[in-house]
């Protein structure tokens, strides 16, 4: 019973984390048809920025609770600075190229940003553990969990709900759906498609950075975290069906629970289980769980 509960709680926490990162990735793919490998670097940049800025805040002796505000600001900072730079400065010249070429462009960007991170922060790990302990912890059937996990869970739910609300209830969101379905026809209707690309990419970048920011207190922030995370995010996005937000949520839940279960029962198969889920889903549903039908090209 206790281990079942532990699996459930661990799984939910892990799923929340996965969803926050995958949401931005799937959004960018849905709108721009770019599977953005550099998403991993934006995640890492978010983590580093939060570690530095919040660390600075705490070392200057301000109220520790304020570090959460600083963390949120770090995510927004990374998103609104780098998002437009990448989209306007690089990606917009690549639109219309093959999807695989776009993946490679973002791979090149990933390599570049990995070194930019090393140039700015060096190769030594950064630690930001204070916010993790700050919120206290709760106990359930003898298992202790830091309350910080609620923040993670809350952020995931908030991200999912607000994105859904934006897409379905607001005018801009509905226009965005039109762009997703057919960007050429949307442009012919007088929609400024490029503006929506810019907004989407910035939003996606901010979400990637938010993922990093929220993770920073739980890990040691060091080189390589981007590469490790992006491939997990790929698994979630592909399992869910590229470009599908509800798909990403379901996939995050499935992968999160499976991984938590594996870690508790057969810890050796930890990473293996994630990619096994990915391969299995792809074998039975080649385009993921929530995929839209596509006409056959002749």
């Amino acid at each position, binding site marked *: 019973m206790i281990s079942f509960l532990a699996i459930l709680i661990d799984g939910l926490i892990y799923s929340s984390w996965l969803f926050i990162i995958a949401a931005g990735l799937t959004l960018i793919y849905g709108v721009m048809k770019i599977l953005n490998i550099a998403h991993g670097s934006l995640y890492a940049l978010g983590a580093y920025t939060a570690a530095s800025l919040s660390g600075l805040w705490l070392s200057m002796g301000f109220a520790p609770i304020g570090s959460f505000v600083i963390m949120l600001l770090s995510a927004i900072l990374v998103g609104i600075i780098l998002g437009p730079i990448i989209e306007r400065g690089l990606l917009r010249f690549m639109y219309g190229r093959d999807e695989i070429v776009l*993946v490679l462009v973002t791979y090149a960007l990933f390599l570049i940003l990995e070194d930019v991170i090393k140039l700015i922060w060096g190769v030594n790990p950064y630690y930001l553990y204070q916010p993790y302990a700050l919120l206290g912890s709760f106990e359930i059937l003898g298992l202790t969990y830091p309350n910080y996990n609620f923040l993670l869970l809350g952020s995931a739910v908030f991200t999912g709900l607000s994105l859904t609300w934006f897409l379905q209830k607001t005018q801009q969101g509905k226009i965005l759906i039109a762009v997703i379905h057919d960007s050429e026809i949307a442009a012919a209707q007088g929609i400024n498609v490029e503006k929506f690309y810019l907004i989407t990419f910035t939003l996606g970048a901010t979400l990637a950075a938010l993922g990093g920011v929220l993770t920073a207190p739980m890990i040691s922030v060091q080189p390589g975290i981007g590469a490790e995370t992006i491939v997990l995010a790929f698994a979630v996005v592909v399992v869910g069906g590229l470009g599908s937000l509800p798909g990403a949520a379901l996939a995050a839940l499935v992968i999160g629970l499976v991984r938590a279960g594996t870690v508790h029962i057969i810890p050796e198969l930890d990473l*293996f289980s994630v990619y096994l889920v990915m391969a299995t889903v792809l074998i039975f549903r080649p385009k993921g769980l929530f995929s839209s039908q596509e006409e056959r090209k002749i």
Partner: protein
Amino acid sequence: MDRTLAFISIGAVTLILSGYAMPQWAVFLTTVSLCYGTVVLGMILLVRTGLVSFGHGLYFCLGAYAAGTLKPFFGLSELVFMLIAAILVTTITSFALGFLLRKYRDIFFAMLSLAFSMILYGLLSKSTELGSTDGFNVTAETAFGIALSELEYGRYLIFVITVGTSWLCCTLLHLYLLSNKGKLAEAIRDNELRVEYLGASVNNIIHINYVISAVLAGLGGALMSISIGHIDPEMSYWTTSGEFVFITIMSGSSSVIAPFLGAAVFTSIRSFAYEYSPDTWQLLLGVTMLVIIVFLPEGLWSLFSKIKKKGSP
């Protein structure tokens, strides 16, 4: 005689002859380039078929582990057996996985192959018998029955065998590409449906090409493990597969010589950048890749073919 074949053979002989006089570091760089080149040889076959694999590290790693585990599990350390083991293991695995993968295209092919390679990574990095993430050392003690223990001479022999294997792979692939089946690859990339109407099975050709590319990757991995003397699960990590895709794009798929050129450029950039600015070598690679994607979409090889076209209009 075919000009490409003549060029490959002359290149191989030149390498073998000059290898004796080359400094140690140059021999090493050439060996690594040849191993990568062999892997990318398989990748260009896939690219010609219209497929990009983001998981060829799977076969690179499988080949290396097949070669490496012969000693601890079967007590064999003959180089030839190591290569045969790599060929067998990669053939069987890719033949089995091919039944699945041949139905996938574009980004889905890339992602499913990525998933398979990460499965292997997940397994190897947790298997304590195989050294987990640290991997283990590999030594080939004999080659064709000749003891390699005498260091300098042994290294040279491994170098010669690497050149020979790459030469053989390159020649065979070139002949395959010239054959009817080989020519269908590009037809599939252009229009699958028409190929089906012409009476050829798209699935079968993709399957065959996939197995060929996997065996080439396995051989590259096995040769790499023997030359470097060490293997670890990182060979199956997605960044390794990414490097292969990188070299493939850099080389271009129009000639079987291109992969070796691309691999040589890649290894040189990496080694020299690593030597002089260890913190910015990836940055340099990324910028190189962007420049190539923008200015040379057909790869480095198109530089040569453009010059050739100008010469004979």
